[in-house]
Structure formats: C-alpha cells, structure tokens
C-alpha cells in the first residue's frame, strides 16, 4: 500500500478527500462547502510544495517515480506510472496554486448549487494534476479525458447565457482531437508493446514516415487544446460562457495541457517528425500570435478580448517549443506559467467587474481608476505583465522564446528563417496595442456612466485572490533564475534527443 502515501499519489488524489466531505454536506450549507474546497485545495498545494522540496533540480530524469502494474492482461499491461521532472514540476505547482485562488474567487460569484460546484472543481483538479504526472499513455488518456467531464458541468450549469452550446462545443471539440490520439496510443501499444512513455522514448526506432502520422494524431489532441490557429474556435465560446473560476482554470491550466502534451509526448517520442514539422508548427504558431492579437483588438467584450489574447500568447509558447533549442523550450515552459498567472489574473479582474456591473462591454466603462483605485492599479500591473513589459514576468518568457526562435537558425537549423522571430516580435507590439486599448477604455477618461459612480473598490478577499498572482508576476519578472534552474537539465536532455534526430535526418 506504499503507493497510496507516495507524494505524487497524494498530490493527485488528495482532492478526493474534499469530494467525500462535500458529498455529506447539504446543498444549503454554502459556506461549509466553500471552506471544504478551499482547505482541501490549500492542503493539495502544500503537498505539491513538499514534492518540490523533494525534487532534485540537477537530475534531468523523472523523479519520485511510482510504477505499478494497474491493468494486466496476458498480452498488454497498463501501469500506474507517475513521475515528475523539470518539464512538469512547474505546471504541477501552477495547477495546485491556481485552484485555491479560483475557489476563493467564487466566494460571492457562485450562489447556486455551491456544493456541486466545489465538487466538480475538486474533481477537475484531480484530472489536471494527473495529466501532468502520468507517464503511462493510457493513464494519461484517462486523466486527459476525465478533465472534460467536470469542466463540461462547470460551463454547462454555472455558465452564462449560451452555456449549453458552449459546454457541448467544448466537449465535442476536445474529444474530436483526443480520439485520434487514442488511436495513436493503441497503435504504439500494439507495435511497440508498451504504453510507458519513458520506455517508448528509450526504445525509439519508429520509422520516419510513421512518426509523422503518430505526431499528427497526438498533435490533433494537443493543438485543439492549446488552441492553435485554426482550431481555436471553441475557445472564445467556452471562455465567455464559463463562470470566472472556470475561465481562470481553463486559461491557466487546461490550455497548458495542450502545450505540455507537445513537450512530453510529441517532441521526445517522435523527434524526427518534430524536426521535420517544426517549421509548419512554428508557422501556425506565428499565425496564431498575429491573428489572436488582431481579433483581440476588435472585441467589445472584455472577456472575449482576454480569450483571444490567449490564442496569441499560446502561439508564443508553441513557437518556443518548436524552436527545438534550449532557449526556446525553456522560454516556452516559462511562458506557460506566465500565461497562467497573467491571464488567470485578467479573468479574475474581468469577473470582479462583471459581478458589480453585470456587463463586460468595453463601452459600459470608463474612468474606473478614479472610482476604484486599488482595482485600477492591480489591473494595470497585470495588463503590463500580459503585454510583456520588462521587469514583469511576460517579458522574460517572450524574450527567451524570441531568442530561441531567432537563434534557431544556427543551432539546430529546423526553423531556418528569421521570419518566425521577426513576425512574432510584431505580436509583442500588437499585444501592447490591444491591452492598452482595453485599459484605456475601461480605466482612463471621464466617468461618463452613472452606474459606474457607485462601484465599490475591491474587498479584502478579492485583493487576497490577486495578490499571490502579483507576487509571482514580479518574482519571475525580476529574478527568473530559480524557475529556469528547475527545468534546465530536463530541457537539455530533451534537446539532446531532438538534435540526435536532426542529425539522423541530414
């Protein structure tokens, strides 16, 4: 029974304790449900810190591994195989960090069926953490698909006006990609006789043309999740209709499951295909950066604006990953964290004003800074972080990615053109345009709407939800070294695999 008390099992399944407690609560016991969920997620965060303390950043391999046969049949075995390495440790922490913050943000926003809401939220956390830790393809698939169920309910029950449409679209879109991945998983299981990711990477030996097909099948699942242009159309609907906490988790963690999937599976398992397809993937990423930025600028709905900005930001992550060199990948991973922090904070900010005004129309606001000074200041910091101002987190991530994409020409040659980095840099400027446009419309200028005059500034709870995010926004912006240290050895190892594949091709 040792595996039950294994740190990775605990960090994944501890929310189940909260779920069990919630089952014994009545729907009317709203505060009890809120506190149960909050305390459970805080303890889970504590466990993830314990995982971090046991994590050795100098070791490039999987650590704290638990590997037990789960489903054994004569011809195939599926394992309960969990592990954490430099590629996933930060995402694990991001998940356990954002969950309590999201729960705190629902304190007054969610009044209906609070118990069920919290129940689904904790179930969602199990799925998300599991995705980042699973090292067996089937186990990964189980967690991956499982996240759909609670998110579907969160959008469908507690969402906005078109919630049912958005929930079903979210579910079907995501499932459409993952079923192709399931086929690829099965093919690998039959041909390579293993579902274990490290084993499959070590074995290698998949012929180049088949690698391309497998790469594409996995990419179908991940690209929809990221979402990469042109597969992004579920995202604005899901984001706009989801309740605030759902949007925070959707943007903060669920989208990262897509980029993480590329990092964990596509790059190391099909390195030749990755090298060959890198210019295409980077090209789509750049289109996404520019397209997301342009569409953001055209939005009247603040939440939609933030949603489309995700398409742009995630484009940066994808560009970094497919630069296939250490800077690019490290920048990509860091940018995943940055996007989780900044966009998570932006959705919280949108949620706070929506709770007060019940509208998200940019034209309904103006001059808010005078009425809500604390809110205005915090929003400005987050806005600047999101557009990549030096000294804040976004800059570090985007700059490292651009370095990687630029340097890619000489280092391994897969991108082979400066156009990618050049056009992406244009995206940084566009981000400043639409983010500042939003800030100006909402916070600057005269207070010309009477409804806005009586708005209350943030209360202690709302400040408490934003403050932890701001701490990291500054920390990563000023001193990112500890974060890079955590991932560097694992990234080096991954790049070595990719370089070997690049050499094999030429």
């Amino acid at each position: 029974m040792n595996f039950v008390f294994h740190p990775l099992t605990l960090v994944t399944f501890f929310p189940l304790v909260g779920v069990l407690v919630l089952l014994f609560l009545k729907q009317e016991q709203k505060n009890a449900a809120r506190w149960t969920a909050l305390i459970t997620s805080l303890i889970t965060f504590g466990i993830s810190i314990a995982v971090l303390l046991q994590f050795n950043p100098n070791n490039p391999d999987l650590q704290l591994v638990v590997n037990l046969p789960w489903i054994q049949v004569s011809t195939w075995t599926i394992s309960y195989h969990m592990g954490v390495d430099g590629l996933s440790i930060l995402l694990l922490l991001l998940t356990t960090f954002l969950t309590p913050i999201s729960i705190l943000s629902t304190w007054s926003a969610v009044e209906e069926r609070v118990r069920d809401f919290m129940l689904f939220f904790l179930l969602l956390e199990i799925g998300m953490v599991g995705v980042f830790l699973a090292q067996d393809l089937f186990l990964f698939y189980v967690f991956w698909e499982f996240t759909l169920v609670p998110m579907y309910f969160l959008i469908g029950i507690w969402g906005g006006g078109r919630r049912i449409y958005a929930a079903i679209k979210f579910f079907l879109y995501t499932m459409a990609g993952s079923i192709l991945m399931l086929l690829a998983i099965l093919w690998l299981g039959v041909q390579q006789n293993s579902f274990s990711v490290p084993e499959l990477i070590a074995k290698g030996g998949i012929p180049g043309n088949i690698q391309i097909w497998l790469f594409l099948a996995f990419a179908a699942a991940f690209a929809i999740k990221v979402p990469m242009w042109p597969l992004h159309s579920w995202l604005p609907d899901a984001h706009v209709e989801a309740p605030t906490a759902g949007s925070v988790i959707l943007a903060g963690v669920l989208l990262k499951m897509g980029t993480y999937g590329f990092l964990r599976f596509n790059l190391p398992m099909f390195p030749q295909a990755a090298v060959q397809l890198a210019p295409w993937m980077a090209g789509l990423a750049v289109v996404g950066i520019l397209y997301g930025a342009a569409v953001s600028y055209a939005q009247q709905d603040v939440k939609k604006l933030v949603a489309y900005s995700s398409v742009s930001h995630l484009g940066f992550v994808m560009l970094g990953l497919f630069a296939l060199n250490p800077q690019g990948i490290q920048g990509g991973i860091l940018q995943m964290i940055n996007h989780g922090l900044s966009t998570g904070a932006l959705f919280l900010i949108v949620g706070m004003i929506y709770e007060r005004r019940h509208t998200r129309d940019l034209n309904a606001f103006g001059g808010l800074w005078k009425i809500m000074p604390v809110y205005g200041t915090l929003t400005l910091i987050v806005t600047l972080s999101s557009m990549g101002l030096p000294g804040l987190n976004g800059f570090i991530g985007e700059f490292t990615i651009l370095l990687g994409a630029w340097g890619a020409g000489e280092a391994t040659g897969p991108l082979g053109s400066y156009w990618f980095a050049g056009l992406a840099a244009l995206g940084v400027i566009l981000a400043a345009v639409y983010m500042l446009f939003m800030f100006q419309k909402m916070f600057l200028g005269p207070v010309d709407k009477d409804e806005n005059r009586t708005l209350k500034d943030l209360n202690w709870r709302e400040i408490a939800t934003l403050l932890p995010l701001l701490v990291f926004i500054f920390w990563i912006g000023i001193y990112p070294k500890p974060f890079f240290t955590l991932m560097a050895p694992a990234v080096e190892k991954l790049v070595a695999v990719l370089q070997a594949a690049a050499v094999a091709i030429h």
Partner: protein
Amino acid sequence: MNSTDLWAILPILVLTGWTCVLLLLDLFIPQRHKAWTAVLAALGLIAAMVATILQAGQVRIGFNNMVVADGFAIFLNLLFLGSGVIAIMLAYDYLKRLGIERGEYYTLLLFSITGMLLMAVAADLIVVFLSLELLSIPLYVLAGFAPGRLTSEESALKYFLMGAFASGFVVYGVALVFGATGSTSFSTIVQAVGTASTNPTLLVIGAAFVLVGLGFKVAAVPFHMWTPDVYQGAPSSVTAFMSIGAKAAGFAALFRVFITALPELASDLTPIMWALAAATMILGNIVAIAQTNIKRLLAYSSIAHAGYILMALVPFGDPAVARDAVASALFYLMAYALTNFTAWAVVIALEQMDEKGLELEDYAGLGKKHPWLAVAMTVAMLSFTGIPPTLGLVGKFFLFRTAIAGGFVGLALIGVITSLVSAFYYLRVVVIMYMREGDPQVSRAPWLQIAAVATALATVVLSIVASPLLNWASRALLELF
C-alpha cells in the same frame, strides 16, 4: 449419456427444472403476493449461478461434441444469469405500476434465459438453432406483455415475424453447411473445411446465411430495422433484458460458430463482417442523434454497440488475435450489460402509465430533484460514450486494440469517430437532466433505485479495478477442436 454430459449442462438442468416447478407453484401464489414468484425466480437464477461456478476450472464436452462448457460459456452464462437477476429487480415494481403483473412473466423470463445458457454451450448447429428458438419464443410473448397497448402488440408481432425470418435464415444456412460438409457438429465441420469432399461455395453461402440470421438477433445493420419499434413498444423491463440477453446470446453463437467451426472462411467473410461492423457503428450512431424518445435512443445506441462488438469478430480467422478478440468482446458485453441496465433502470423509474415520461424532455430537472438517479444516468451516458472513469472506456480501449492488432486500423478509426458522434446524443441526455429546469415524476421503488445505483457504481469501480474482470475475460477461452 454419462456424468460428463450432465455436468456440461448442469446450470441448464437446474434452471429448467426450477422453472417448470415455478410454473406450477405460481398457480398457487395469489395475485397480491406475486412478489414471491419474483423472489423464487431470482433464487432459481442464483442456484443456476452456483451450478455454473461449480463448472469452472474444467472444460467439459458432452453429448458427442454437441455442447461445450468452457471458460467462454461460463463467462457468458454468468452474464445471462446476472442479467436475469437484475431484470427481475427492474420488472417487479414496473409491472405492478403498469397493472400488467402476472406470474408468467418470470417463468417466461427464465425459459428465455435457459435458451441463452444453451446457446453459450452450443457446439453444434442444431443446438444453436434449438437454443435460438428457445430464447426467442418467450421473448416474443414478453414483448407483447402489455395487452391492450397497441405499441406492445405491434412490438410482439414485429419481433415475432422478424425473428421467424431470421430463424429461417439460420436454418437454411445450417442446411447448406450440412450439405457442404456432411455434418452440423463444429468439431467435424472444422476438419471437413478445406478437404476435397467439401463444396466451398455452398459452405460460404451457408455460413453467410447463418451470419445474416444471427445478425438479426444482435441487431446489426442492415438487419436492425425491427429494433427501434420492438424496443419502444415492448414493456421497458422486457426491452432492458432483451437488449442485453438476446444480443449477448447472438454474439455467443457468432463467436463460437465462426472461430471454432469456420476460421478457414476468413478470407471470404472478413470483408463482409468488416462492412457489417462499420455500417452498424455508423448508422446506429448517426440515426440516434435524431431521436427524442429515450427508448428509441437507447435502441439505436444498442445497435451502435453491436457494431463495436462486431469489430472484435472481424479478425476471427487470425489465431494470433482471436484470443484477444474473444476476450475483448466478452469484456465489452459485460461493460455494455452493466451500463445498459443502469440506463434502463432510470428509464423504468421515470416511465409513467400510458407510455408517459419517455421523452427526453421528461428528464429535465432530474439532476436537481433526484440526484442519485441523475448521477447513475450520467455514468451510463459517459460509459456508453467511452469517457473515463467508466467501464465503457476500458471496453472500447480493448476492442479498438484488438482491431488494430488484427490490422484493421480503418475500422478502429470508424470506431473512434462514431464514438465522437455518439457523445453528441449521450451528452444531450446529461444536458437535459442538469441544465434544464423541470419536475420529473419518479418511482421510488427501492429495488429499482438499488439496481440503478449499484450498476452505475460497478461501472465506475470496475473500471478502476479492471484487472480481475479483464483477466477473467481473457482466460475465458473458447475450446477449439
């Protein structure tokens, strides 16, 4: 006749004897105490289960190779008997509520199960035919068990005519196979195939007829036409049982006939089966989208799932895959049975007099008003779709793996794409239950609730602790001659 013969059909003997006694006993049980008949029928099934478990661990071939009690038969027989017990749980309150409670219901059910038990051990085409009739005739009567209700009468007549038609195909196929090989026994047929004295054309045509006849029973496209009307018109408790028992029995015969007797015909029949499986998956899932009546929706869903199971039959001639194929089909049948019973238990709980409460709209608000039933139904819908953590996912995983191992990647691709299509209509049920307001009327009968929640719980728990069931399925070997 010796003791091995009797051992091989022990559960059948137990159940037949008990049912005959029950038929007499029921005459003396007054109408207001019909619960006793139900309890006695369930006890008979449990006794037969004990007899089945006693058979385990040894393969018994009896009556000159006419019956084989092997691991395959034991697995399926326990499935049939367990389904019978759940079917009784579902039926008792339902029959009373609809005013159609009669003791014969249970004896007919038991006779039908006897036919299914015989089907699972059948190793001779004559026994296959015999058990097909034995399991079908009581079901024709049961389908018409709500007299005066036009749909029920239509259902019985339609089922009977189509069933007779299917039996005709089987008999003709058996005759042709007999003409080609000179025998109806699987052990003789498998040796006769390929020898000079066998007429290959006749054999292939005969085998194809058997495939068609059994295709009717499992509701494979294009032999599925009767399914929606029969499923909708029959009393729901009958449909619940029929959609599992009759289907599983059809598959029992298909697998045993084609894997043990006719593996040599793979090159001729594999393309036909490929097409059958693909058409069944595609049509079942697409037509289900348009349904607004839950019974019709589940009818098309059952057609679709027959398609998935047929997928495992496609590589029947490949000895390297056949073992996994049988195991994955058995496992999927078990997963399908549990999931289907959950769904039907909820349907029965919501059904009112005069076929009210069967539209999807009637499920609005179930999530708020009756959370346990709604959770059970949600688990069933997720399991049908193949979303974790449910048995449906493990089952599909195993089935698709078999298809890929057999080299049928295209079929697996159709399988996953149609699963996506199915998500659309299964999710709609969930949407209506949780995301629409309403006040559904629900029966509070305890057995019904227990059946719904217990099968849903099993669907989830057995997917997490999947090894025992999977291992049992993969050890449930077909005895080859």
